[in-house]
Each structure stands twice: as C-alpha cells, then as structure tokens.
C-alpha cells in the first residue's frame, strides 16, 4: 500500500493526504460489498446478529440453498437470463443493420432517417411509461415474455454506436464489392461484421448490463410472479424485510445470497468485457 504512489512526485503532506484519501475511498466502496459476501456465506443465526460482520463466525452456504429451495430463485433467474440474452442479441443485429444504413453515402432521405432515429433518444422511454403500458395492453403483451423482449428492443444509442464503428471501415471496400455484384447483406456480412467485431461486443455488453438490471419496464409490464425477472424478485424479497424492526420474512443471509447470485453474471461480463465497456465510455457513449 505505501508504495503505490512511488515515482509520481508527490511529497510530504500531499503524499499522506493522497494515501489517506485512496484508502478511505477504497474502504467506502469495498467494505459494503465485502459485508454482503460475508453475510451471504454465514448462517442465518449469525447474519441476524448485530455487529460489523466483516469476517465469518461460521462459514455456511445455507443461504444459497435457501434462495433456491424456499424462495424459488431459479425461475426468475432463468427468466432474466433468457429475456436478456435473446433481447440483446436481436437488438445488436437490428442496431447493426440500421447503423449500416446510416453510413451509406448519398442515400436519399438519409438526414430524415437520422433525425427520425435521433429524436427517439430525446424522448426517453421512461417518460412515456403510462402510454407504454397502454400500448402493451392493446397488443396483449402484458405479463408475457414477448413483451419483455420487445419493449426496448432497439435504441437510438446502440444504432449510433454501431454507425460510429462502421464509419471506421473504408467505404471503398464496400463500393468495390458492390461493383462485383455483391448484395447488401453479403457486403454487410462479409466485410462490415468481421471488421467491426469490437463494436458488436461493446454494444452487446453495454445493452446486456442495461437489460439485466432493468427494473422499471418489468415493474410496469409484469404482475404475474411466474414471469418476474431477477430485479423484481429481489425487490420483493427486500421489501418483505420490515426495515423498522429488521426482522425479516427471509433470513438476511438468504437475501444477501440472492444479491450475490444476481451479481455474478455481471461480474463475469465485466471480467471479459472490461476493455469493451471502457471503450464504450471513451466513445462518449452513455446510457441513461
């Protein structure tokens, strides 16, 4: 720890202050997460005791068994997994197609198409929540998996990201393929997709995280507990805790285990996709 600042030229008071701030911020971010992990792997009895709980009295994975056996977490987990995966794959494909359209030079009505797409970014879906609910009612998509996949299936944001990646591909490549008589889908599939794979990965991971974490849309569309996604089920579990007395319908270690389980897919994604997620940030691409 004391050597981490070496060679940066900070001395004396400033050096001490920087070390102190680094340690303070690190602990503020890390300890709450560590606490969750320790409680999730403690016994129900230990987890209900008061204390700082940063180390185990007895290590136990009974909380993890509890959430699957008693709280039946497998179903919401699978719901979330399938809806997120299917939705994200379709979204990446559709956004890529639209992004491909937007890089065509001298395409008639291109500006109109761009504005048509950009305008949807100005009007975030969460501000039309009530009419989105009514739309889904009219289409009989309430309480269906299709509804969860279809809503938010395309975003102006991912289209613009894909377009930015495609713009780095030399346009002459596509032109010469077109001269040779290749169709648009062929050009798209054989030239653009291979070159823009990092772009696909970036959009895929960013959208995957956003969908996995989405709360508002499922809370609006779904009332049937069988179709609950993970965040909805977690919310219900947390709310069953009486926050005034601290006595829980579900033991603390099980709630923390549920939190750990719903976090694991994201941590795996982060490990694989750190590079892409940071790249998305560098492109100034931001999800609300």
């Amino acid at each position: 720890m004391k050597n981490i600042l070496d060679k940066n030229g900070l001395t004396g008071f400033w050096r001490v202050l920087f070390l102190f701030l680094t340690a303070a911020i690190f602990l503020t971010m890390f300890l709450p997460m560590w606490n969750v992990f320790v409680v999730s792997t403690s016994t129900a009895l230990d987890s209900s005791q008061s204390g700082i709980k940063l180390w185990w009295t007895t290590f136990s994975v009974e909380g993890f068994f509890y959430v699957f056996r008693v709280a039946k977490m497998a179903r919401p987990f699978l719901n979330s997994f399938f809806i997120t995966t299917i939705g994200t794959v379709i979204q990446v494909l559709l956004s890529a197609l639209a992004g491909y359209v937007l890089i065509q030079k001298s395409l008639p009505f291109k500006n109109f198409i761009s504005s048509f797409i950009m305008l949807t970014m100005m009007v975030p879906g969460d501000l039309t929540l009530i009419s989105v609910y009514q739309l889904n009612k009219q289409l009989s998509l309430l309480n269906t998996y299709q509804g969860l996949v279809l809503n938010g299936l395309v975003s102006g944001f991912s289209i613009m990201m894909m377009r930015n990646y495609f713009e780095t591909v030399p346009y002459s490549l596509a032109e010469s393929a077109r001269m040779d008589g290749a169709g648009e889908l062929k050009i798209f599939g054989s030239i653009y997709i291979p070159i823009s794979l990092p772009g696909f990965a970036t959009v895929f991971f960013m959208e995957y995280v956003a969908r996995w974490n989405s709360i508002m849309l499922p809370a609006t569309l779904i009332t049937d507990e069988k179709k609950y996604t993970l965040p909805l089920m977690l919310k219900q579990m947390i709310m069953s805790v009486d926050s005034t007395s601290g006595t829980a319908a579900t033991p603390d270690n099980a709630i923390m285990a549920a939190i750990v389980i719903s976090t694991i897919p994201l941590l795996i994604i982060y490990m694989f996709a750190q590079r892409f997620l940071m790249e998305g940030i560098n492109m100034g691409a931001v999800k609300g």
Partner: protein
Amino acid sequence: MKGQLKKKILRYKEIYLLLIPVLIYFLVFSYYPLVLGIIKSFQKVKLLGGFEMVGFHNYKEIFGDRQYRQAFINSLAVGGGTFLLQFVWGLLIAVLLNEIRNKASKSLFQTVTYIPYLLSWSVVGGLWISILSPSGMVNGIMRALLGTGYSPMVFMSEGRYARLIMIFTGAWKGAGYFAALFLAAMVGIDSALYESARMDGATRIKQIRYITLPVIVPTMKVIAVLTVMGILRNFDQIFVMMNASISDKVKNLLVLIYEQGIIQFNVGTATAAATVVLAATLLITSVVRKILKYDEIYS
C-alpha cells in the same frame, strides 16, 4: 431530376429494406406512446366508460396537487445532491487513480470503484438497506465507536436521514462511472506537458491543478449535461429503497407517476405529469447546454 432521385432510391432499395424493422419498431414503441401520452393528458375517463376531452384540466390539477409539488421538490433535492456528491467523489477517484503508479493497485482500485455502477438498484438498494438496518454494519461500527450504551438507529425509517441516504447511495453507485469518464480524458494528456512543468520546478500538486484539471473541463460539461437530462428520471433507486415512513421526503416524480398511472389508473393526470417532466427535461437540458456553451465544443 425526378427520374434521378427515383433511380437513386431504386439503387438503394435493399438498404431501405434493412431499415424496415427498426422504423416499425420506433413508430410503434417510441412515437405512438409519445403521441398517445400527449392525447391522454388532455382526456378524462367518463364514469360510464369512454373518454372526454377536458383541455388543460389535468395539467391544472397536477399543478395544484400537493403530492406532485412535493415529488418535484424531492426529485430536485435528491437529484441535485446526488449530482454534486457524485461529481466530487468521481473527480477525486480519477485524480487519485491518475497518481497511482503501481499497475495492480490501480486496476484493483478502478475495478472496486466501478463495480457498483454495473449493479442494478435492486442489488445496491438491498445492500444498503441491509447495511443500514438496526443489526447492520453501520450500527455495528457506531456501537464499536460509542460503546455498548449506544442504541441502534433505524436509519431507513428516519425522515431526517432519508434524502441524505439516497444522495449518498446514489453517489456511491455512480462515482466510479464519472471517474471512468474523467480518467478517459486524463489519459489523453501528453506526458511531455508534465515533464516540462516539472523542469520549470512545478510541484506535482501544481501540475494536477494547472494541467490535469483544466484538460478535463470539457468532460465536466458533458457530465453536467447528461446529469441534468436524467435528474427528473431517477426511478429505480427510489422504487427499491422507499418505504412508507420516508416516502414524504424521497418519493419523486417518476415513482409518483408510476403509482398514479399504473397502480391507481389515474391515467389522465399521470400522463399530464409525465408530459410536464418530459417538457421540463428538454427545457432544462437546452438551457444548461446554452450556459455551458456545450454545442460549441461538441457539434
């Protein structure tokens, strides 16, 4: 001329076909709800079924409604507070990260500060509700500091702490994200700049003050604009962390609109409120853009 355009369109006909699914999607799922919402905001449900146009009646109603006014104040208080804290916190993380030379420590610090941003509010909300519970970690630390005479606080049901808790947890979740944005701007700084400043005898802290910070001013503006666009749209956090004893202090516009429109079916007033939030967001954003001269940098 006309023939030429037609020829061009024909040449691109395959391209237009590729666009059809996306256009249909936006028409159905973006534009239609927007128009429907605006229409509904001028309507009222009749007792015998059906709707009638009521002009600005719904709008008058929400502006006179104490609940909506309180929700607006709560949105601004929590949103503004979160922005300030998260901004300072994120900037601090970025400056510290920029000074850490050891690669492993740097990557550990960045990962730990960034992870909360990846998690859903169900996770972060659940985490903090548990930590702030009477048997949780915060009360544990207080007891360790103040002795066994300390009686545990029920933080989540104390009205006076409610907004502070929302602000703190909001900033806790988002600081690493701001830090990543700041850091992206910092890594672009030419190291020769620091080198020549050092030659001229500038201390490291002076270099941070006069080289690092000025370079990230444009990023600060981007962050400000983005935050303002989202300030009235914080739903997830409050939806997860609110309970009956603190709802007065923290229930914000979107949560109220959700309760009114989806749970209680007051569609007219709820869509009117949503339309006002939408208009306010567009207005505030364009004002802030003007003030920061945002469009001159990013056109």
